């Protein structure tokens, strides 16, 4: 799956429009993922996953920062996320299926807060981008 010039431009536009809300969206995406797919909570036994959890918010910021970084280096996502890719392969070992779940929830968050931004074309580009990020993060698993 290759990101076209249009896709890259759409993704950059999304993150530019989201701006400072990215951190909050990261937290909300995680929150929705834990609610909609309870099995994902198994990766966070050490977290308080209750409503308004500071740990979830904090982790959401990290997730958002990685997405922003990938968007800013969209021509070389593998390079930009290389250390994170190592981390997920060697230490975290989150099953690959879960990246799709978080990606989906991130789309839901964008849809909730910015419906006008998420036109079908932008939806397609963002979905592709999130898939690409997931692929990079699991690329070194085996």
């Amino acid at each position, binding site marked *: 799956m290759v990101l076209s010039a249009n896709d890259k431009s759409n993704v950059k536009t999304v993150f530019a429009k989201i701006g400072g809300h990215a951190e909050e969206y990261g937290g909300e995406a995680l929150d929705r993922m834990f609610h909609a797919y309870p099995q994902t909570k198994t990766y966070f036994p050490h977290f308080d996953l209750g409503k308004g959890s500071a740990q979830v918010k904090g982790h959401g910021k990290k997730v958002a920062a990685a997405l922003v970084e990938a968007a800013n280096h969209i021509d070389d996502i593998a390079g930009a996320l290389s250390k994170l890719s190592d981390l997920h392969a060697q230490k975290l070992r989150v099953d690959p299926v879960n990246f799709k779940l978080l990606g989906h929830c991130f789309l*839901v968050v964008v849809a909730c807060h910015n419906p006008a931004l998420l036109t*079908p074309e932008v939806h397609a580009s963002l979905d592709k981008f999130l898939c690409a990020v997931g692929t990079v993060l699991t690329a070194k698993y085996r």
Partner: protein
Amino acid sequence: MVHWSAEEKQLIASVWGKVNVEECGAEALARLLIVYPWTQRFFSNFGNLSSPTAIIGNPKVRAHGKKVLTSFGEAVKNLDNIKGTYSKLSELHCDKLHVDPENFRLLGDILVIVLASHFGRDFTPACQFAWQKLVGVVAHALARKYH
């Protein structure tokens, strides 16, 4: 049989009550064809699907989207027997339409995103949970008679 809590039933009904089936159905199907273009393989007789604009404006896409979401309404009305509700449709999708059940999951997720974009903050995490469960159950029911 799937168990639905009173809260889940209420969340599903309250969202469904405000859905414009024709608009939402058209939008969901159009997005499926745009976001996952390989799904267009099932619609070679729909005419012009050459661009997002063409897909969104395509009257066959709109009509079929409405048909699909209207059928989804049957699940909402029969939460306690979704299996039975879709038994014949499952056979049809397998024997005549030859649709990979993965497509039901894709459409279900697209529907959730469309609902989110229409309801905004009212589409709470609890609401999303109930609807993810519903689209999952529908997808499962439609795949159930495959052989």
